[in-house]
């Protein structure tokens, strides 16, 4: 979306709180959630702030579980509301059945995952271990979420607007895939304008059947295989159309001989790696996918023509790297550097990795 000029003073805010404030300004009708570290500030902020906003009519409800939260989201979205939930990894796992229903029933909503390290109860430290779950469906059946990956507190706020805009445009659930560090850290943020996201009519919503229309039905059940296939084809067509929304950011890729690919927090670290490398005369560039679904396959493929190799950096065991390899189709080697379980690679560590690969590549070429 076009970036408008913002007049508001910058504020120092936590990522989770900036996101919550943006939700208020995006005129959500409802938020349903269940506390879990490292994102509880979202519901805490809303519970604290919403009663002070006399001009707003926002439902904020602490549900009995993430299962209940996501189904409340389903109900409210079906009734035409702009609605969201937020959680962290284990809670998002619990929501998967509901998310699949929402995707099938084609309801717009926002799901925020402030990812922590797993598997299992794992750790409350930041991670990017839920990339597969977020981008490949996550629940059962063939579906996709629109997935936005912020890399700053500013984007934690901005992407709330972008996510709702896209969700409503495509009648599809959208996800903000952040991580514990982005949720917890404080940064300067210029908040999006209050009321800056208009609402379109939703004639399909269950708002009570009036005489002038047939009854509206929100469902994900299509018992006849012919019908189920038709719905699936319709969904696939929609996902195809969504490809035009792909977004990414590049740093110093013009003359790059080595390409880093990283999203979210990892991309910030990689930006530093680019600088450090260039100080040493290594021409590194960085591509940061902003939308993880749709994924910038085409652009990565184009850049692959110009570089010696690609290093994909993630805070997991190597998930997005599979998409990078798909994009490149073997044209150049794609390496992976990751730390797990809440550990984050340092710029120096990544640069060392690059240098080691570089050396190995040269040996191969000799």
């Amino acid at each position, binding site marked *: 979306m076009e970036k408008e000029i913002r007049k508001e003073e910058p504020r120092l805010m936590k990522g989770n709180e900036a996101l919550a404030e943006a939700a208020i300004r995006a005129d959500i009708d409802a938020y349903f959630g269940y506390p879990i570290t490292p994102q509880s500030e979202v519901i805490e902020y809303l519970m604290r702030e919403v009663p002070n906003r006399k001009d707003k009519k926002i439902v904020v409800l602490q549900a009995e579980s993430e299962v209940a939260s996501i*189904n409340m989201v389903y109900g*409210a979205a079906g009734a035409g509301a702009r609605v969201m939930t937020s959680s962290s990894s284990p809670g998002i796992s619990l929501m998967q*059945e509901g998310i699949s229903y929402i995707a099938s029933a084609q309801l717009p909503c926002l799901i925020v995952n402030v990812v922590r390290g797993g598997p299992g109860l794992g750790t409350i430290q930041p991670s990017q271990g839920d990339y597969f779950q977020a981008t490949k469906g996550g629940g059962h059946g063939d579906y996709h979420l629109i997935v936005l990956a912020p890399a700053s507190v500013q984007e934690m706020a901005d992407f709330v607007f972008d996510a709702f805009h896209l969700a409503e445009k495509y009648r599809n659930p959208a996800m903000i895939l952040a991580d514990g560090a982005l949720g917890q850290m404080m940064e300067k943020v210029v908040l999006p304008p209050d009321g800056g996201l208009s609402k379109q009519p939703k004639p399909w919503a269950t708002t*009570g059947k009036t005489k002038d229309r047939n009854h509206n039905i929100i469902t994900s059940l299509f018992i006849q295989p012919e019908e189920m296939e038709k719905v699936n084809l319709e969904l696939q067509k929609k996902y195809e159309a969504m490809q035009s929304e792909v977004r990414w950011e590049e740093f110093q890729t013009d003359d790059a001989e080595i390409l880093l690919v990283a999203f979210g927090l990892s991309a910030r670290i990689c930006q530093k790696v680019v600088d450090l490398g260039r100080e040493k005369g290594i021409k590194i560039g960085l591509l940061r996918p902003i939308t993880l679904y749709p994924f910038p396959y085409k652009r990565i493929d184009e850049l692959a023509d110009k570089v010696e190799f690609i290093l994909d950096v993630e805070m997991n065991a190597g998930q997005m790297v599979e998409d990078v390899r798909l994009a490149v189709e073997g044209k150049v080697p794609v390496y992976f550097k990751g730390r797990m379980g809440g550990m984050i690679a340092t710029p120096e560590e990544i640069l060392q990795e690059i240098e080691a690969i570089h050396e190995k590549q040269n040996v191969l070429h000799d």
Partner: protein
Amino acid sequence: MNEKLLLDDGTELEQVFCRPDTLTDVPYHYCPGCGHSVVHNVLMEVVDELDIQDKTIGVAPVGCSVFAYHYMNIDMQEAAHGRACAVATGIKRVLPDKLVFTYQGDGDLAAIGTAETIHTVNRGENILIVFINNGIYGMTGGQMAPTTLPGMVTSTSPYGRDIHMSGYPLKITELAAQLPGAYYVTRQSVHNPNAVRKLKKAVTKAFEYQMQNKGTCFIEVVSNCPSGWKMTPVETIKYLEEVMFPYYPLGDVKVPKE
């Protein structure tokens, strides 16, 4: 309902009962004699009589009645198995002026959806919960439900429900009535004409209470499942009277203090 009929002997008859207007023309897919259909009829009759078609939003979760939206000519949402109360909460919270009801089976409401049920009632969510207790999982082919009676044979209790292994039939209606959020809790049936009349009164009351923002109304209907019980519809009446009602006694469980 003002259609007239002239008999051969000249007597003029007036129409006193017909299919509710708010039912669609789609024939029910339910098995012959299934109580689900009767409860659907009653609900839509009340919607007609209170003239609330444009205000009423129903939620039907997975179970034999998941297709309720084919029959009820009102706005409806399907829900995942067990989640009707959460879905209804979502709808009611954003559309507080509408009348929202759930229509749930016993497996749905009292097993997989217990948490949502209890917490929705506990919040006093201003909705109507219609709970069809047929003591069995009808849709999936007659497995044991949390409400299946001791000794009752189902496909997953082929030698009869063993309480040592599977625990006791859950009287979730009594449980719900304990919660302060519950305003009106009643147990009804549809096994004979008078029972149907009583159910209709209960549903009417429940919608009226909802209009007055009184809190959760909870109506259990002790119903049948001829297919799952492997009985003829007529035989299920006897089984209801002799076996089900002694364990699940009919009548109001909690009435408003007024």
